[in-house]
């Protein structure tokens, strides 16, 4: 029976975003200046490495944005019924993790539970930690076998990961050799000596580091809980991977939602001046005078009342949680456009006095056409820089909003939710640290990558920012100009 595909609100926007990105990429390849600028972004080793990390996270997000509901086995004369649970492709890939649920906490890679229970062994009641239902369940004598089993599986995973990374590196060398019309040996040598425009050596190193981390995780995933389990026995690794999508959705959709208002009103205020300018300035002054958290809290509370009033709109819990996430992004967008708007207004004020705009006016081009064809293309780089810079801030903001109680629905995995629970776990004795550590590791990796990539984009698109780079003079010898 064919499953029923479900298109959640955020799914729609994510795929729309991908379409937009592809369209933008196509435009960039057709414009030599833009192509050169983007090449400059990837010449920065940090930006290149972080773009690979972000790409990996994006892949996970996309796999988690294809939702479906499985058909239930139904009687032949009945209409097809579907499961009440909405799954994603990622859930299907990680189904082993979803199904291997334990009773409660367990340490990373453990084969026994974290808490002791009274168990009857040979008629005597003992206080021991019970064996886990799934983690390490294949071990006959866990005390002797455990270490060897974990090490051999990890080694197997490392070898597998290294092979994949080596294959990727070989493909890269081959492609580079073909492109430059040189031999393989020479291509490999140039990459090793960092004599390439794009720092391919960094890319290969990143791939190997990623392989060293992902390989063993995948190899151990099927038989152990690599990052332990939480209070209800769910796999922490699965939660952390699922949280990536939430972070991505918040980071991208919220900035996307600010764009129409910020760009439209900013250019209008700067170009039209007069009473339009005054009105728009008043609007964003009012908006930015309200402390952001409070404004968002107020809006989210009101959205909650709305969702509460219309329970009939949502058929599954996932759909309701997703709509809440969608609303949160919309609210973040509607409350956060003031900064970019102010920036674009200033830029438009400057641009409108330039000769080419005056020429357009003299030719009798209409005002709206000037704004769309002459002003807008010349502020796109500012929009781009701001969008990329805001991504990491929003990912961090999600955690705080969820802590405050106006963030993501508790039923949806998110870094904020994980940290929220970790707060009480860290005050237990002995400490339950793995949930917190997992959230920390994933979140720092994502945010750091986003920050480094944003710096690369800013340096490439804004020549003024480049002069502020911290780079020791001595290290300049290897770097291409």
């Amino acid at each position, binding site marked *: 029976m064919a499953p029923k595909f479900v298109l959640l609100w955020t799914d729609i926007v994510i795929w729309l975003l991908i379409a937009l990105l592809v369209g933008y990429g196509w435009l960039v390849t057709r414009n030599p200046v833009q192509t050169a600028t983007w090449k400059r972004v990837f010449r920065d080793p940090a930006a290149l490495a972080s773009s690979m990390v972000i790409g990996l996270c994006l892949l996970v997000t996309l796999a988690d944005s294809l939702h479906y509901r499985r058909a239930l086995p139904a009687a032949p004369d009945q209409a097809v019924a579907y499961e009440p649970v909405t799954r994603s492709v990622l859930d299907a890939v990680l189904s082993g993790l979803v199904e291997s649920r334990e009773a409660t906490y367990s340490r990373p890679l453990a084969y026994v539970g974290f808490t002791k229970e009274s168990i009857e062994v040979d008629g005597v009641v003992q206080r021991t930690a019970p064996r886990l239902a799934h983690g390490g369940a294949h071990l006959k004598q866990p005390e002797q076998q455990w270490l060897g089993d974990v090490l051999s599986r990890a080694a197997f995973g490392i070898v597998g990961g290294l092979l994949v990374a080596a294959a990727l590196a070989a493909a890269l060398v081959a492609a580079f050799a073909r492109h430059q019309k040189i031999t393989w040996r020479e291509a490999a040598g140039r990459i090793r000596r960092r004599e390439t425009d794009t720092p391919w050596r960094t890319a290969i190193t990143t791939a190997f580091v990623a392989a060293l981390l992902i390989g063993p995780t995948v190899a151990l995933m099927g038989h152990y809980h690599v990052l332990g389990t939480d209070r209800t026995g769910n796999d922490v690794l699965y939660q952390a991977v699922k949280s990536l999508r939430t972070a991505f959705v918040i980071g991208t959709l919220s900035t996307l939602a600010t764009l129409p208002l910020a760009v439209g009103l900013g250019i209008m205020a700067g170009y039209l001046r007069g009473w339009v300018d005054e009105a728009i300035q*008043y609007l964003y*002054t*009012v908006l930015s*005078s*309200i*402390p952001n*958290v*409070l*404004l968002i*809290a*107020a*809006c989210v*509370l*009101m959205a*909650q*009342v*709305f969702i*509460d*009033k219309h329970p009939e709109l949502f058929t599954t819990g996932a759909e309701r949680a997703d709509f809440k996430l969608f609303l949160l992004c919309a609210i973040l967008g509607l409350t956060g456009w003031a900064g970019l708007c102010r920036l674009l207004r200033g830029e438009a004020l400057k641009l409108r006095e330039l000769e080419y705009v005056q020429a357009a006016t003299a030719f009798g081009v209409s005002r709206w056409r000037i704004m769309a064809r002459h002003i807008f293309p010349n502020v796109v780089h500012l929009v781009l820089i701001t969008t990329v810079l805001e991504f*990491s801030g929003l990912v*961090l903001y999600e*955690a*705080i909003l969820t*802590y*405050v*109680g*106006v963030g993501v629905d508790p039923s949806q995995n998110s*870094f904020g939710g994980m*940290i929220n629970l*970790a*707060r009480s776990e*860290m*005050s237990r004795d002995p*400490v339950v640290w793995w949930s*917190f550590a997992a959230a*920390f590791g994933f*979140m*720092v990796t994502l*945010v*750091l990558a986003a*920050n*480094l990539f944003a*710096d690369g984009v800013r340096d490439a698109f804004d020549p003024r920012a480049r*002069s*502020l780079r*911290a*780079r*020791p*003079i*001595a*290290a300049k010898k290897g770097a291409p100009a």
Partner: protein
Amino acid sequence: MTSFLLRRLAYGALVLLGVNLATFFLFFTVNTPDDMARLNIGGKRVTQELIDKWKTERGYDKPLYFNDAKQGSEQFTETIFYERSVSLFTFNFGRADGESAGDIGHEVGTRMWVSLQLALPLFVLQVIASTAFALLLVMFRHTRWDFWGVVLCVLMLSISSLFYIIVGQFFFSRVLKLAPISGYAPGLDVIKFLILPIGLSLIARLGAEARLYRAMFLEEMSKDYVRTARAKGLAETVVLFRHVLRNALIPIITSAGSYLPYVFMGSLVFESFFGLPGLGAYVIEAITKQDFAIVRTMVFVGSLLYIATYILIDVAYTWADPRVRLA
């Protein structure tokens, strides 16, 4: 100068009016008081009588803008709009929505001092620490120290403040037992409760602030007067501390000042984590209890602080940069 100040004050009042209208619209037009009552009472068995009782107790049973049943000026004063929106300007905040909750004005009055005890030292120390760190980086620019310093900044600003709090509480309070985990005591005892939140807050924001200030300093360093100062033979430290530091003061005032209202709101998260009974903790409590009256009031109070701060920044500008006085 006076006319400038008056103009800023008038515009501030206008903005506050806008904030007030927007909040009222958001809270009473998007959803009716009935919906709010239903959510607030909760549970399955919500009857119309219960809702009516809830509304009467809190004064939400009156019409929104215009009361037909009354005479004279009471037609306007006996409305939700007057009681819940206009009266905010006289600092009459009314009662909270919660069952046993008291007068909001009283709570704000007492909690404000707690927030201030956290906010003022934090703000001053923050500016000093970030400026000092940024100056250090600038002194070592073009060297390995600057490079790794900036790397450290980027790493620090990529970590959520929640991590700093949780790890800090765990390490300093549980393992080392240097400070109490949370709590509050009036008088001088408060220092031992404040030291950890202030310290952690400093570290949490140091990365972002220091990187920003470093950029401001470098921007200032590329100006002509710096070259002149160097050309006349001044030592690099004199150039940095005498000339650059003073001129970089203006962007630093703006940047630090724009953070001031958040400091006043008592860094929401820090207060609630460390059990300090300030305004931030009040807001979080209100959100958890879905107390709309408190949230509404705090939006007003927060905006008031924000606008007041911006006027103060403008005044500070005129002190730091005499050219502004002429404009």
